C-alpha cells in the first residue's frame, strides 16, 4: 500500500529556503508571488494491507522520524495517488 506524507513548516517558523525561492522567482521575472514555503513530500511503500494498521504505522513514523515537532506539521494520505 502506498502512502504520501507531507511535512510543512509551522506558522511563524522562518523558512530560509522558501524565502530564497521567492527572491529567485522575482529575478526570473515571475511577478506576483507573495509567499513561498518549502516542505517535504515523502512517498512510502508499505507492505501492510490493513488501512488501520497502516495508519498507525504512518502516525508513528511521522511523529518519531519524518517530522520535527518543534518546527513542523505533518499529514498523510493512504492509497495510490
Amino acid at each position, binding site marked *: 500500500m502506498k502512502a504520501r506524507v507531507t511535512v510543512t513548516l509551522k506558522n511563524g*517558523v*522562518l523558512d*530560509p*529556503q522558501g524565502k530564497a525561492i521567492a527572491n529567485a522567482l522575482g529575478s526570473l521575472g515571475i511577478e506576483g508571488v507573495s509567499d513561498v514555503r518549502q516542505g517535504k513530500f515523502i512517498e512510502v511503500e508499505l507492505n501492510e494491507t490493513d488501512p488501520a494498521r497502516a495508519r498507525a504505522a504512518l502516525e508513528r513514523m511521522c511523529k518519531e*522520524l*519524518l517530522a*520535527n515537532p*518543534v*518546527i513542523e506539521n505533518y499529514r498523510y494520505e493512504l492509497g495510490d495517488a
Partner: protein
Amino acid sequence: MRASVIVFPGSNCDRDVAVALEAVMGKAPRMVWHGDSKLPDSDLIVLPGGFSYGDYLRSGAMAAHSPVMRAVAAKARQGTAVLGICNGFQVLTEIGLLPGTLMRNASLKFICKDVHVRAARTDTLYAKLYPADRAIRLPIAHKDGNYFADEETLDRLEGEGRVAFRYCGPDAEITPEANPNGSRRNIAGLYDESRRVLGLMPHPERMIEKDLGGSDGRPFFESLINGLQ
C-alpha cells in the same frame, strides 16, 4: 577521567575530537560504535561532528534513534557530561536533550570559516577558562547551524542562563553582522538545565594548536577535563 566518543555512520570529526581530547587529557578516549547499546563507564560523552546517516531527512534526526543514544540520554539525565559538537548539537536537539532545532543557514550555503564567539557565562564546566568579555576565535563548518526556538522558549533559556556561547565580532560585540547563519539571538551553544550537557556549533577541536591557525579551542578542553578530574 574517562571519555567516550560516539561514532555514528557518517561521523567525520570523531578522530579530530579524539586527538584533541588526547592532547589535553594525555589519554585516548574510548570510541563507541553507535550500534552498541551499552556505554562504557564515562565521565564525558562526546557526540562528534559530521554527517551522521548523511544528515538525510534532517541533520541529526536518524542518529537520534541509534541504539546507543538511549543510553546516552539516560546517562545525561543522571548527570554525566555530554558534549555535542556541530552534528552532535543537532543530535542533542533531535533527541530532545536540548530545546529548539538547527535549521538551514540563512544563506542556504555550507559555511566553513573562523568566527568569534563569546562565553555567555564562565562559571560552567566548559567555559571556566575563558574570559567573560573577550572574543574566542573558533571555526564553524556547517550547513544547518541556524538555531531556532520560539520566542517564549528563547526567553526562558536566557532566563535560566542556558545560553552557552554567542556569535560576536572580533571586539566581542554581539551584533547581527557577526551572526554567520541566522541563529536566533546569535546562539552558538546551549546548555541543558544542569549545564553539563552542551550543544556547540563551532569546532574547538580544530583549534588547539598554532599550526592549525590558532589555539582558542584548547582552554575549552582544558576546562572540561580539569572540571571532570
